């Protein structure tokens, strides 16, 4: 009997203690799970080591025309983006990324009902339109101003050198065979190293 009585008294105290301790630690956040999954030992890399060099994509971006100016904004392994500025203010972002790092990005095109320039195309959310070249390279135009419509996005998607990008896939496949063979000799990915300005 005694233990049960003690337990009865202890239980509320323990509950209070647990509540007190959880209150002390930070409130749960909806991003805690992804934080846990992407930190610590053995976590997956954010970018696949087989991803195409970001700089390779530069040649396929459209050029500025009329009031529109293209300004390079980001270039990382598997990704390149440009800002599309009209009279000095940004109206859209143009990007190409290698979905090798993010297969789900390519998977969404399997149910695409639209095509742009012959490539499967989807609208994503309310501000983005993308297409997929050769099941691997995603080309996207994202509105950054309400004046830049879905029709504008489709228009600018067609200004990319999509044929050139499609040929890159062939070249990449060929070179990946060679890469597989000489993987051990492949140089590690380095962060951009600054050179003194000329």
């Amino acid at each position, binding site marked *: 009997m005694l233990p049960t009585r003690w337990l009865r008294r202890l239980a509320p105290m323990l509950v209070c203690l647990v509540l007190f301790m959880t209150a002390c630690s*930070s409130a749960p*956040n*909806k*991003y805690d799970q*992804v*934080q846990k999954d*992407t*930190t610590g030992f053995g*976590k997956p*890399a*954010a*970018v696949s080591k087989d991803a195409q060099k*970001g*700089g390779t994509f*530069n*040649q396929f971006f459209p050029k500025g025309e009329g009031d529109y100016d293209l*300004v*390079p*904004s*980001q*270039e*990382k392994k598997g*990704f*390149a*983006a*440009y*800002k599309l*500025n009209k009279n000095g203010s*940004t109206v859209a*972002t143009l*990007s190409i*990324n290698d979905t090798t*790092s*993010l297969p*789900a*990005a390519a998977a969404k095109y399997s149910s695409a009902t639209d095509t742009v320039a012959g490539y499967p195309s989807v609208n*994503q*959310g*309310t*501000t*983005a339109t993308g297409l997929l070249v050769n099941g691997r390279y*995603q080309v*996207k135009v*994202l*509105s*950054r101003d*309400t004046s830049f419509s879905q029709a504008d996005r489709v228009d600018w998607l067609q200004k990319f050198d999509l044929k050139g990008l499609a040929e890159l896939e062939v070249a990449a496949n060929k070179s990946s065979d060679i890469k597989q063979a000489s993987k051990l000799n492949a140089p590690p*990915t380095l*962060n*951009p*190293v*600054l*050179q*003194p*300005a*000329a």
Partner: protein
Amino acid sequence: MSKKIYELVDKLPKGGITVMALKSLDKFVPGQWDNLVGFDHTIKTVTGETDPAMVQAIGERAITLFNDKGEGYQRALWLYQTVDSASGMLGTAALANRIGQDTFLGFLKNITPKPEKAQTIDLSVKLVTEIVAFCHINGIPGDSLGDFLKSLGDYSGESIMRMAALVAFDGVIPLGAEFSTKVLSSIKGMGPSDLDKNRTFKGVKDAIPGNDSKGKLAFMTESFESTKGWMDKFVAEKGITQSGVVDGLSRFIEGSQSKLDYLGAFLDISVKYYEHTGIQTLARRLIERAVAEL
């Protein structure tokens, strides 16, 4: 434990001295900076997306990118945080020095060349830090040096505010309107040992390109030289003057007009504008990349 980018953005202050000091510069760069706070709020503002599932997906990809050390974002965060805290130490030292030395008015008459030299290095280190952090966050975008410079020159939002603060708080206030000429001639006359004694430099020196302090000094000098024209034009075009900056600040720092020296040290200690706007830049760039990659 790794820093959580979403918590850093959620916990950015909405008020306080840093935010007030930055807001006082709004008259020079009107409407450029709106102190974006909160991770989801930043996602919605940057992308224009409101669908909760889409916002969550963008947030998760941004966090994944940040947590991969090889992507350089953590290094950029470290740079923004370190350059602020290291220069804050300089401010603390300068202030303690002055207060210990003399009375409040007395120290104004006692301007020694030492703090100016420290301020010169401070400004140069902060400028180089900006360039290095830019490369860690954005890579080296484009196919040519011209592309890269175009990309650097397209600063807006919190990035242009950070540069306005650099020019105003670390240039014009402590060194006067001709600060860039002063700094350039001063840095050209320095040796590596001058750098090694400086706290701000010591804080971030590993990240500055160059094999040794001599090489790093050369890089800093060249960087300053090549951005001097941009800074001079920025000051002239935006009409940034010592009295203009002080006027803005005097609304919340009483009596700052007559105590510029004290004000410089005070700003150094209390205003963490590199860290504050640096976190905002980092979040914006991560989100821009995440939404494009998804």
